[in-house]
């Protein structure tokens, strides 16, 4: 199996998928169902990717829960994107040392 040929195949498939909707959906969409669908779709996608993935991205469930809880709390406190991310990482790191 040629690794370079694999990389080229992967790249063509991945970028075709990425570019296709941008090429096809050019007219303004007025259909209410489609607009509603695309209103919710990004958040559904992100929610599905976040959970339960976040529970298993560190070695222990406890560490992940600390990072998870920290991220939710800091977001609710409106701390902003970057501080939320940084402090969640630090909290998870400290939790890892303690657990």
């Amino acid at each position, binding site marked *: 199996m040629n690794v370079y040929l*694999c990389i080229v195949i992967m*790249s063509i498939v991945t970028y075709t998928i990425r570019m296709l*909707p941008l090429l096809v959906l050019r007219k303004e969409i007025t259909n209410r169902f489609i607009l509603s669908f695309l209103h919710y779709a990004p958040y*559904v996608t992100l929610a599905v990717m976040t959970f339960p993935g976040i529970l298993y991205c560190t070695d222990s469930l406890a560490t992940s829960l600390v990072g998870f809880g920290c991220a939710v709390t800091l977001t609710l406190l409106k701390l902003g994107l970057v501080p939320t991310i940084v402090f969640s990482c630090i909290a998870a790191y400290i939790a*890892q040392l303690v657990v």
Partner: protein
Amino acid sequence: MKTSDSRELVKGYKDALPVFLGYLAVSFTVGISARNAGLSAFQAALMSLLNTTSAGQVAAIEIIKSGGTYLEILLSQIAINLRYLLMGAVFAVRLSPDESMGRRLLSGFGLTDEVFALSCMRKPLNPFYPFGGWLMAAPGWVIGTFLGVVVNSLVSASVTAALSIGLYAMFIAIIVPPAVKELKMAVVILASMLCSYLMFRFVPSVSSGMRVVILTIAISSIAAIIYPV
């Protein structure tokens, strides 16, 4: 290039700094699996540059390692990366219909999970925002992969794990505010997490990429019927 374009390019570039750091950590582990499959550092970095998709790359590396076929590579990439089709559709409606084809395609580079997440906060979307995000994030992904192959244990495992939680923290920082503002969105997001967990737990044969596709189509459709906007 208009002034608003350069402003959005710089904004996207700056906003993606946490993605750069998270990518360094996550792609480091992709590099380690690439080395275990016998790829050179150059091959692994090239794969990262031309794909920038963690799950897709890990799947391809496993297929290469097990001596699979090109057809398996092709099918795995379609299945795992199909979620970009949905994300691209979200971009397509958020871009102004007046945008030229070249500018629309430029935004397609920003279709990685994390740069897409950042771009969700921009309405309307200027194509230079996701492109700026990709310009910041992609080098992190490529460098991390390269280091994962050549360096044995540059970063201790605990630092890598802590940084990888950063990408999830970013997703949370993006989905929680609309959930607080809009009760319907909160219901949709909690239902998504619950369904995702149930599917992960009871139908483990479905890959994470396919789980995203199936649940995004199902839950967004139901939400669009119950709670039309």
